[in-house]
């Protein structure tokens, strides 16, 4: 890896695939993920989803409100060739709940609402508390990304994940299975 890091090397479709995988997996697994260290994690699409045309960096579809990923508009947009550019997640680990937006090809962490314990008081205490949970959030996103990456480069991506995603994207009345 160069000093500039992986961001400089990876093509932009990797982040779009990651966002799609998060969205798909959170729905089909009812939010339940298991990390590489065996710990449990819950991940849900929160209240914002932005999609773009492939080859265009500007978002052209923006869905907000409760569970935007479950709307027919969101699935139709992906079925029609759009890819996720930004999504807001609710991530829950033990009793800590994070709300965070993942954005762009760098998988930037934005608008992170952190489950801090120390709200006021000495700067040092507030800072240490916030940095602890910020670090955990960064680690969780990286862990999810690693899990995605391993699946993305495996043979099963084309043979089973992509077909399952296509099935998942079917309109409810067309799939006949409710999903």
């Amino acid at each position, binding site marked *: 890896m160069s000093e500039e890091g992986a961001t400089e090397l990876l093509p932009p*479709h990797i982040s779009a695939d990651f966002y799609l995988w998060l969205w798909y997996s959170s729905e089909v697994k009812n939010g339940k993920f298991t990390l590489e260290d065996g710990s449990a994690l819950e991940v849900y699409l929160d209240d914002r989803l932005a999609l773009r045309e492939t080859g265009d960096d500007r978002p052209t579809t923006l869905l907000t409100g409760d569970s935007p990923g479950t709307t027919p508009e969101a699935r139709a947009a992906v079925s029609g060739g759009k890819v996720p550019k930004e999504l807001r997640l609710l991530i829950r680990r033990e009793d800590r709940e994070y709300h965070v937006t993942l954005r762009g090809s760098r998988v930037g962490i934005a608008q992170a609402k952190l489950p801090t314990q120390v709200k006021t008081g000495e700067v040092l205490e507030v800072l240490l508390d916030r*940095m602890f949970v910020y670090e955990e959030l960064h680690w969780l996103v990286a862990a999810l990304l690693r899990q995605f990456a391993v699946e993305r480069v495996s043979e099963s991506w084309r043979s089973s994940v992509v077909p399952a995603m296509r099935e998942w994207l079917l309109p409810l009345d067309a799939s006949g299975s409710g999903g």
Partner: protein
Amino acid sequence: MGILKGALSGRRYRIVGDVPEGFTDDYIHALNTNQLREPQSPTHKGEVAGWCQVHNLLDVDFQDINLWLYNHYALFALRVDKKTVPAKLLRAHLQKRMEAWCKQNNRPKVPAAVKEELRETLELEMLQKTLPRVQTWEIVWNMTEQWAVFTNDSELPNERFQKLFLRTFGLRAIPWSPLDELAGTEGLPEALVSTGATDVRGGGR
């Protein structure tokens, strides 16, 4: 929103290079050397940038480490002041000045040289009355794990942060995304690079 309260947004950086032993005196000096310096003249036009404290943007002295160094975290802010005259307002006032000049000198038109002189005088007058637009973005730097967060996600402020950080501490700040964590798994980034875009269009067909 920022490091100490509210939702946290921004770019994360990896800091390349070691923090020297007994760095505090050197870094106090470095931060003070690159602190925000307000222009001497009230008619100064354009931007000035430098470090300030997160607690109050008017505090630009870093002598007291208790105000910016918290265990292994350095906490400070980039302040950028920009002073400009509103172009439309300048044009409108200039029009009035030119009309007055024509009347006073009984001339139908203002010569170009005079117009420029009137414009410069007017701009200086307006700059004296104008307050700068002040922006600040916080930085937290974990000096033992060598990463930092800059609380802005736009290109220009981030470039400015990287340049000033390098000039101040002699250390490079390299953008660091969660994608960079993949580098720890041998062969994974290279395998990802070779993948094509996933096409799920026409679900089920």
